[in-house]
């Protein structure tokens, strides 16, 4: 197997006295679609946010493309341009248009010229099926459309890794599918993805590897279909019996 894109080494994290991540070790390889599931408060979102250091681990090391992000000499901003992240609450910038949301980092971080940034934004909007919304304001879009813009915004940076943090949890049920379809297509194009989700169907159909977390630790890990069909751990069993 090739070199991992991400390596988490002995990660421990405390929020005050609360031990939210316990000795997590994890390698993520190119073209993987790694799905993190688990009950709320199990630390799966915190783990995801540790990968691009939105959460700084109390102990342990985070490597990205062989570079240690937890080393203070690392240019974290440069590393983050190669990792896209999509949030539960979309977090579009409400004071910028759809295109303005996408071009901001292209111009200010990647230093693209205005016209080149706009072209790239329009191209990404086309990929998520929102070419006609280029001039709209985020507040004029539905939740599903906003989330697709957020995905386009992340993809426009041409990242090698995409992080999805419960991206369909804040959506009305009838809007979930349009977002999942975009993610599914992205996976089929070979994008490396880490997905925290409650969508068990997506986990089974699209995921190439599944991790079940509970109380800050990785409990079970393996092929999604195998785990769904035949969970090895008691806690995995009881969790799956409640959500399926």
């Amino acid at each position, binding site marked *: 197997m090739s070199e991992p894109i991400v390596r988490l080494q002995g990660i421990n994290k405390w929020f005050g006295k609360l031990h939210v991540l316990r000795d997590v070790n994890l390698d993520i390889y190119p073209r993987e679609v790694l799905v993190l599931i688990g009950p709320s408060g199990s630390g799966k979102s915190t783990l995801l946010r540790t990968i*691009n250091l*939105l959460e700084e681990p109390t102990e342990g090391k985070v490597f990205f493309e062989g570079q240690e992000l937890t080393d203070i000499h690392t240019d974290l*901003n*440069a590393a*983050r*341009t190669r*990792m*896209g*992240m999509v*949030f539960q*609450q979309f*977090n*579009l*910038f*409400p*004071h910028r248009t759809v295109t303005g949301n996408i071009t*901001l*980092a292209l111009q*200010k*971080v990647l230093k693209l010229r205005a016209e080149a940034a706009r072209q790239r934004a329009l191209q990404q909007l086309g990929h998520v099926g929102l070419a006609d919304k280029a001039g709209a*304001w*985020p*507040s004029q879009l539905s939740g599903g459309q906003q989330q697709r813009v*957020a995905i386009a*915004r*992340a993809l426009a*940076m041409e990242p090698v890794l995409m*992080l999805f943090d419960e991206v369909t949890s804040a959506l009305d049920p009838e809007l979930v599918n349009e977002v999942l379809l975009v993610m599914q297509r992205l996976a089929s194009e070979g994008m490396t993805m880490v997905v925290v989700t409650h969508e068990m169907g997506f986990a089974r159909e699209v995921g190439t590897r599944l991790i079940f977390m509970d109380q800050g630790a990785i409990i079970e890990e393996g092929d999604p279909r195998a785990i769904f069909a035949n969970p090895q751990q008691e806690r995995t069993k009881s969790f799956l019996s409640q959500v399926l």
Partner: protein
Amino acid sequence: MTITAAPQAPPDRGLRYFARQQTPWSWVTLGVGILALMALFVGAGAILTAYGWTQKCPPGSKAAECTTTTPLVEGLLSPELGALAVAVIGVGAVAAVLALLRSRSVPNKQAREAAIAGAVIGIQAAVLAGVLLWFRGSNVEVFARNFLDVRLLREFFPRFVSGAKNTLILSVLGAALGFFLGLVLALFTLSKRAVIRAPARLYINFFRGTPLIWQLSFAGLGVVTALRLGFFSGTGGPYKVAIAVLGLNLAAYSAEVYRAGIQSLERGQIEAARSLGLSYLQSMRFVIVPQAIRRVIPPLTNEFVILIKDTSLVIVLGLAFFQKELLGVGRDIYNSTFNATAWLGSAAGYLIITLPMIRLVTYLERRLRSGLTSVVG
């Protein structure tokens, strides 16, 4: 059973509908109340104008020989005005009695509201007329001479205009300095580093914790001369000190407003910006601050209104004649004429400047509350 799915226009509940719901009784009650109030304002205005508001006195004439407010005093004490006030009290009382008489048998809410409005307006007119009668029993002559000398305002009008100009210059330049410095201070107070937060907090607490009048006196009379700050000396010195201190003071207050605005944004905004690779400063500049400023425009406008009034405190600095602001002008005129109408001139000047600003705050607040995130662009 069928459900009509087609949407329907809402029922008409406008002014016309309101009028259709009235009964003769409610019309009369409302009419009598309005009549009382209109009679008081129009009648009193007509009587006072007929007697005249002011008269010209030959220059150098003594108060015993000629007083400019004599016609006004005659109007105020005239039997016509007294009769009008008594009549208004009567009409107002009629409106109240009319409302009480039939209040049990009112047919609908609209008629009841109209009758209540008529009664309330009638009572308000009666109360005002009562105050007028009481005022006629006091020393009207002395009051009019000291507070209602319109001729004085006319005579010193250019001075008041000059005062208003200086009030505006002081507040606009003070605001420019204060709003800019306040934003920098706010960003300092939000730093994760205590060594940056601490001095900013110290500054804010000092300027919020001491009176502005003390800050102006201390800077103008002490600091500037002691530190030999050439820029702040000479004729223009006190004026510059005033702008600087007003700005430094406003910075402390506006810093708290900006800080609240920044903290009211969702955490996800900065996380989204940082995860795109923007640095902390870039995130602040392009994502956080533009949104925060939109949110704090109404409270900052409010701070600006407060600043306009606070410019009056520069009176302690001893500005030159042509630098005087509204209150200073009022005081100068009072000191030379011993007529308190000058103070009313100052008040009118402040109101002409602040009332539109207060309206603007209300308008901006309503516009922001309606959820238009793209309001300013």
